């Protein structure tokens, strides 16, 4: 039987939607292509080892080592995890296991609002309130690893909380019933049973939170001090990979510009690795 006009129209619409859906993947592909096309020649010229493991970054004089920034990004991410991880997890434990329905209905939207605050506002608050506090009470310039970690820790809260809340909610109530019926308190039930059952989702939430922290730029520029060296204490200023790109892209040209794109490649792999870990853990959960 020949296709009717309606069926042909249906097919056409299907194609159009497919095309639109692919355009987002296409843009990802284009971005990756450009970063690699711009950045790879520099890595080739400088050498991967010198690029990644040298601490000398003086692009106008031909030195392109980003090791200090890699270390800085690493520490800032770990720092954010140290502050945001426990806080976010405790918050999600409270929301799922302890809070009444009414309290939860109030807190959850408020937390989602947290995700909607522009990062420049976080940075601003950090500069105005947190930086002087750290400088006056702990010493150093105030613009530091510690300050950036605290602010980033707060910024990753929505990611950590929303994903770990989903994971905890997915834990069957039969586990909780069993634990209560054995005389366990809510907290015992939470840390002895529920957390184990939701482990993969909780790890996913932390890893994606790290992904958020490693990619954050604006707030970090404002509060981390941007000094080009390996931080030796939490009170030292530092410059992350993202900060460096944002700070120098405006005036960079030639090899300098290529070096910034190459930095993008490194970030690209960082985030890819974190997302892959998160996906692997999320999948493990589903199989169970």
């Amino acid at each position: 039987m020949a296709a009717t006009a309606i069926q042909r129209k249906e097919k056409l619409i299907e194609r159009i939607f497919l095309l639109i859906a692919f355009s987002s993947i296409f843009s990802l592909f284009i971005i990756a292509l450009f970063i690699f096309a711009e950045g790879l020649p520099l890595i080739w010229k400088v050498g991967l080892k010198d690029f990644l493991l040298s601490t000398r970054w003086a692009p106008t004089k031909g030195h392109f080592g980003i090791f200090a920034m890699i270390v800085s990004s690493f520490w800032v991410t770990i720092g954010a995890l140290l502050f945001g991880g426990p806080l976010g997890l405790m918050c999600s434990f409270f929301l799922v296991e302890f809070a009444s329905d009414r309290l939860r209905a109030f807190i959850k939207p408020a937390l989602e609002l947290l995700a909607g605050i522009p990062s420049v506002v976080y940075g601003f608050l950090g500069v105005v309130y947190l930086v002087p506090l750290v400088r006056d009470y702990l010493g150093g310039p105030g613009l530091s690893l510690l300050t950036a970690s605290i602010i980033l820790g707060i910024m990753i809260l929505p990611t950590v909380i929303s994903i770990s809340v989903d994971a905890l909610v997915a834990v069957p109530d039969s586990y909780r019933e069993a634990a209560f019926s054995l005389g366990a308190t809510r907290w015992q039930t939470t840390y002895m049973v529920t957390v184990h059952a939701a482990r993969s989702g909780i790890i996913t939430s932390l890893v994606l939170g790290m992904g958020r922290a490693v990619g954050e730029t604006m707030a970090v520029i404002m509060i981390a001090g941007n000094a080009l060296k390996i931080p030796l204490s939490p009170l030292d200023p530092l410059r992350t990979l993202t900060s460096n790109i944002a700070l120098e892209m405006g005036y960079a040209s030639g090899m300098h510009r290529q070096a910034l794109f190459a930095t993008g490649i490194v970030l690209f792999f960082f985030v890819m690795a974190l997302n892959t870990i998160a996906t692997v853990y999320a999948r493990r959960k589903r199989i169970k």
Partner: protein
Amino acid sequence: MAEFILEIKHFNLFYGDFPALKDLSFSIKEHTVTALIGPSGCGKSTLLRSFNRMNDLIQGVRTEGEILFKGENIAQNGINLVALRQKIGMVFQRPNPFPLTVRDNITFGPRVMGEKKADILEAAVEKSLTRVGLWKVLKDSLEKNALSLSDEQQQRLCIARLLAVKPEIVLMDEPCSALDPIATLRIEELMLELKKRYTVVVVTHNMQQAARVSDETGLMYLGELIEFDNTKKIFTTPSQKITEDYVTGKFG
């Protein structure tokens, strides 16, 4: 023997305004198996869950009357629920071992009570698993994830997990409904074994099961206790018409 361990006196339970249990009065003897039977929705599980206050987890539940456990009213407010649930434990309809190792499942109860000594925990593992007939099978796989066991083994493990808490009463809410007939028979044997040390109250849909394992049987219908008596009597010469109709399969 023949001491009453549980005495239910004019007990009522409401879900909001709905009366789910109406003026129940009966007593349960120590070291017996008591079966609660009746059609779905008759309130037998609700009653069972009143004995260790699991209904407290549901919002809007209110009770009247008394349930005396060794003379103490456990239906009143302000009772220590943690201590109560350690004395009156529960086995659920679907086996619900924790997604932990066999060992961690068994030691959960003792650890909850603050036991930390490894040798005491080990002893509890062996003793509890032995009592449910799993020790020989599982002694070399204590590190196995409990979810990888068969349904019957999981249910036995749940019973063992409960025994490690040293309860006095074991409540069982249709403990065999997820098991095949052979596993069911073996769990029933276990119930008879358990009543030597514990008091067992079992809710069941399966009338043959009630007839096989219980000493006394209560028939519930629409939230009321129609008849509570010696199991033999309930199944042969019941005094109520409803009981006779139910045990002969005319309804339910």
